[in-house]
């Protein structure tokens, strides 16, 4: 690496990305880039690549979620609940990848002031969580409905219809609808992300507190065991899969339906065939009934427009339905047993509790457990509603704008809208609206936008082929920001592991990876590296899944695989939770698994130690 390094990772200000990426800065607003004017502050921080939220190069419009969480996550720590020594998380983009840093602690007098507010505000949340959650849920539903209801024209009228002119004039036209709807949808997505973090910081903090408490009592307790103790079983995140199981059973009771579902044809053809029979229609009706919200689940992380959701890629849920029906026919059980999951959790908690020797400690343990249990399900529930349900709506509505822009040749294709950031899209829309308003024959700058889009697509392609460095700047000596520890798993070990990974460029040399021991057990087998859910069809039984991270829509995959390895995610990440439930070994948060392991490599993972070994490289 030719870059000069400060500490052990390159200094972001001197860091040069490959020349194929030239012009990437143009895609993002200036406040999101490293800058000389902020160099002194930036140099004091440790910037690591955020592979949870941005494992892939960022399309400018997909960057909006990142912008939104930078504000929302940070403010709940600094200005709302006031976690005393912690500050927010700042973001920067380098070569289309996002790097983040926990901001250095505030001055001591601020810590004191925050402690006072923390003491007043935080207990309220824990004492009233159930009520607060209901309130949260209602408001979030409203927000989603509002986004669904936005008026986005599918085409421009040649002339405004009569009823908008008389008897009561509307007073404005589609041009205004277009501009206004985009402004509103931006405002709504930012607000949704404000809600996203309403209780998340505290849920994570409570979890970390419980880990500490359990460790003091049982120095050797595994974090995977703690995960089992606090995790909820009946959370929204698992509902989509449960609905699939239910639909599969329903199909089994109507043999014409299950026969169609088992066919090797597309979802569209299956739906068409089902419409032709009474039982088929009834089954489809049931599916339609639950589709919103339970099929509003991303096929990926929910962070990228191209991932799609079940509702937009019906082949995905239909492939699961096929395998569920086949398994039911073989007499297998397809549902997770909620009862046995909760019974196992209760047993573990009770047995550990019984091992505590002093009455005082048992009391503190109970109290700590109640604190974490009272709020922890938020960490699992919010995920479905924000990243999956609402993002599904968002992507569909944004595509409506894209369709319109493509229809009038401002863009070549609808998805090209994602090549423009949220400050730029209004320019395109205004351009289009102006051209319509001007009358017949007034040109847009379509050519200019389309050339820009093509150039940006090339840059993103180059970025995908670039093995971005895991971190920049100086590793910190201490961290108090709860997300940094819990979500990104930043510890002494991860930092040094990244340093190891940073030295070997890409795959080939590193043969042992270390991550979180998320689900106990040992598995060995051929690796299947999956970056997109669409590739899921390639997975063979007995393979070991290697992915950047997984999410609820991946759940059915876990019945096929022998074990799971992810780049990102701690012990309460989706992959960790599901693996524990299916009794599969899992190592999460390795940082470099998808770039180090190749499909076909024989890997061995030990879910008790967190070590993944590449036993044999594929030829």
């Amino acid at each position: 690496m030719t870059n000069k390094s400060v500490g052990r990772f390159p200094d972001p200000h001197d860091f040069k990305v490959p020349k194929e990426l030239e012009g990437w800065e143009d895609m993002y607003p200036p406040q999101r880039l490293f800058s000389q004017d902020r160099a002194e502050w930036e140099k004091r921080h440790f910037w690591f690549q955020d592979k949870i939220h941005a494992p892939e190069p960022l399309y400018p419009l997909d960057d909006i979620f990142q912008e939104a969480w930078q504000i929302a996550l940070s403010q709940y720590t600094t200005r709302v609940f006031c976690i005393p020594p912690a500050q927010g998380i700042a973001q920067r983009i380098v070569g289309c990848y996002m790097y983040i840093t926990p901001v250095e602690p505030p001055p001591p007098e601020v810590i004191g002031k925050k402690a006072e507010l923390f003491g007043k505000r935080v207990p309220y949340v824990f004492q009233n969580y159930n009520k607060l959650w209901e309130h949260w849920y209602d408001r979030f539903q409203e927000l989603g409905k509002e986004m669904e209801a936005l008026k986005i024209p599918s085409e421009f009228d040649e002339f405004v219809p009569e009823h908008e002119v008389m008897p009561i004039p509307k007073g404005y036209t589609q041009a205004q609808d277009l501009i206004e709807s985009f402004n509103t949808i931006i405002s709504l997505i930012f607000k949704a992300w404000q809600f996203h973090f309403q209780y998340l910081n505290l849920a994570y903090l409570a979890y970390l507190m419980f880990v500490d408490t359990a460790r003091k009592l049982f120095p050797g307790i595994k974090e995977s065991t703690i995960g089992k103790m606090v995790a909820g079983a009946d959370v929204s995140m698992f509902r989509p899969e449960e609905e699939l199981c239910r639909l599969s059973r329903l199909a089994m009771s109507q043999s014409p339906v299950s026969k169609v579902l088992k066919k090797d044809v597309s979802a569209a053809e299956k739906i068409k065939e089902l419409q032709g029979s009474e039982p088929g229609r009834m089954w489809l009706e049931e599916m339609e009934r639950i589709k919103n919200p339970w099929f509003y689940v991303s096929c990926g992380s929910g962070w990228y427009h191209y991932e799609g959701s079940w509702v937009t890629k019906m082949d995905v849920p239909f492939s699961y339905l096929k395998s569920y029906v086949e398994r039911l026919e073989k007499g297998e059980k397809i549902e997770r047993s909620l009862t046995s999951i909760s019974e196992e959790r209760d047993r573990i908690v009770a047995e550990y509790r019984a091992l505590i020797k002093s009455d005082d400690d048992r009391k503190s343990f109970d109290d700590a457990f109640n604190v974490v249990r009272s709020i922890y399900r938020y960490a699992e529930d919010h995920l479905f509603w924000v990243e999956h349900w609402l993002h599904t709506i968002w992507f569909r509505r944004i595509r409506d704008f894209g369709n319109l822009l493509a229809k009038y040749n401002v863009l070549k294709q609808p998805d090209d809208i994602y090549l423009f950031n949220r400050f730029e899209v209004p320019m395109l829309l205004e351009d289009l609206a102006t051209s319509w308003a001007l009358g017949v024959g007034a040109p847009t700058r379509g050519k200019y936008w389309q050339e820009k889009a093509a150039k940006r697509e090339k840059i993103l392609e180059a970025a995908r082929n670039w093995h971005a460095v895991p971190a920049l700047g100086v590793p910190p000596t201490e961290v108090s920001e709860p997300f940094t520890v819990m979500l990104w798993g930043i510890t002494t070990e991860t930092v040094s592991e990244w340093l190891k990974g940073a030295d070997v460029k890409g795959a080939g040399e590193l043969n042992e990876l270390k991550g979180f021991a998320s689900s106990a057990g040992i598995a060995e087998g051929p690796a299947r590296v999956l970056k997109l859910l669409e590739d899921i069809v390639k997975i063979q039984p007995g393979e070991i899944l290697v992915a950047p991270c997984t999410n609820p829509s991946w759940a059915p995959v876990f019945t096929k695989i022998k074990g799971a390895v992810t780049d990102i995610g701690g012990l309460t990440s989706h992959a960790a939770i599901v693996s524990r439930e299916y009794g599969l070994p899992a190592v999460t948060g390795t940082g470099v698994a998808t770039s180090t392991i190749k499909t076909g490599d024989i890997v061995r993972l030990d879910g008790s130690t967190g070590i993944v070994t590449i036993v044999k490289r594929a030829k």
Partner: protein
Amino acid sequence: MAEKWIYWLRELGTEHNNIVGKKCANLGELTKAGFHVPPGFALGVGAYERFMKETEASDRLLAYLKTFKADAHNVEDTMKFEAAGTEMRKIVESIKMPPDMEETIRDYYAQLCKETGKKDVFVATRSAGPASHPGQYETYLNVSGPDEVVRNVQRVWSSTFNTRSIIARARLDLPLHHDPIGVAVLTMVDAKAAGVMFTVNPVNGDESKVALEASFGFGEAVVSGNVTPDRYLVDKVTYEIDEKVISDKGAEFVYNPATREMEYKELPPDRRKLPCLEDREVIELTKIAKKVEAHFGCPQDIEYSISRSLEFPESIFLVQARPESVWGKKKKESVLGKKTGWQLLFEKATTPIKLKTD
């Protein structure tokens, strides 16, 4: 009626500590509680006392000691004690046991053969004192046939006159000619592997773990420290094997039928680094250890053997259980300092996590 001096293990419990010694009392307790213990019988300290009193043993020992003068605190006198020990053991072993005692031991042994379905069943004759004297007295393994059993019981008695025992008594100003102990006569387990386990992690006192050590062959290899054993750390609640260290075990402690002695036999290179336990055995042992701890109500130090001829899980035998001596005695003080959940949360929120970045 004469006082009872011989017992089946199943007749014993911890309340018999002073009569048959801790080891036998505990093994009896384990047997009664339903644990898998090699069948056997125990001679109480009363048997030792009868032997000494009813034969000329005591008189002859006392006569010998009249001329013996040595200072136990003076290292240079060690040789004198050694000579005395050899002489005293010779005296004890040369005396014939009272006929009714010998007859009784033979009867018990015959019954043991019948119960185990084996002719001349192999047994171990072990010392068992009311107070713990680890490693002080002798144990004789692979004893077979009634004559040998009788002879070796007597050898265990005479081991109270081995050099280290008489020096120990001399230093404490205790009588040198008399130190009643019990003797355990236990059927041998044809051990393919054996070892010890603690129901607490001896490294940090974590009571949610069972720490196991195991080596090929008989357990003496692990207990004596002559072999580096395989080590396991298992979670008592989840039964996950947290740590597994397979060592180069070098040798196994086995019976040599030719010499009729126990000996260390070097392992062939391809076996040295093989795990000597299967994972399912490790998990089963952990479950057993948990039950033993629950039965006695405090952390335990347990010796086990795994038979090569029996099917899992019948193959697993407990051969010893006693309170763990380090962590078991520590007073349990609060580690969380009487804090409420809210206080713990506040503490967490205000304490940054240090990262080592040098």
